[in-house]
């Protein structure tokens, strides 16, 4: 598992690749914290994720809480249906911004 990080016009886009489970969540967490320490506008793209467990959900929630507290913004995009199902089950669709594409995420960064 690895996490790609790129700057798209002042927004950091994190793309975790592979499975986010207990054994790999730390890599995701380190990348998320590193991004949040340098930029408060963050998008996570889930296009290259085929599996997420509660260990990965925890990282997303932690990042969402951190950015909310620091007046930043977190938006989640490109989520496959089966990944969205797990977010919805956890009630995360109510507390996190989830949209289809990176283009759509831009509305939250104005």
């Amino acid at each position, binding site marked *: 598992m690895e996490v790609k990080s790129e700057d798209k016009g002042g927004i950091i886009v994190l793309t975790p690749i592979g499975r986010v*489970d*207990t*054994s790999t969540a730390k890599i995701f967490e380190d990348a998320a914290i590193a991004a949040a320490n340098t930029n408060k506008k963050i998008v996570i793209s889930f296009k290259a994720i085929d*599996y997420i*467990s*509660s*260990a990965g*959900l*925890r990282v997303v*929630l*932690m990042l*969402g*809480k951190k950015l*909310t*507290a620091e007046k930043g913004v977190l938006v989640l995009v490109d989520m496959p249906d*089966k990944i969205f199902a*797990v977010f919805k*089950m*956890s*009630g995360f669709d*109510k*507390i*996190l911004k989830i949209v289809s594409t990176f283009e759509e995420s831009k509305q939250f960064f104005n």
Partner: protein
Amino acid sequence: MLLEVKNKMEEFCRISQEVQNFCTEHGVSEEKYQNISLILDELITNVVSYAYPDGNQHTFTINLEECDEKICMCITDDGMPFNPLSLAEPDTESSIEDRKIGGLGIFLVKQLSETVAYSRVDDKNQLYVKVSIL
């Protein structure tokens, strides 16, 4: 199918393959296989992380059986007495500021299964989970 598992996360990869083979043999749908895989991931994580605070190597078991179009899973460990079903459920209505970070794994297990039951038998924790095949 009875699997013996050591209390370290590296075991998950091997177990995952065994479970996939078992599910294919028993005609489990792709969606239910994904659910079973997530359930076992969460339960193995709990045992590996919390059951054996002494840090020594231990072995616990996972039993998988098919009965009446259901997959029954039983995880048995001889670690500290702990009923994961006694944990408070996360409040899925709370705001992001108030939302607590823990308790999500067992909550997902409950959401994804038909039945979850805990018992303490012969100084062992037994967690029994049932999921339908289709």
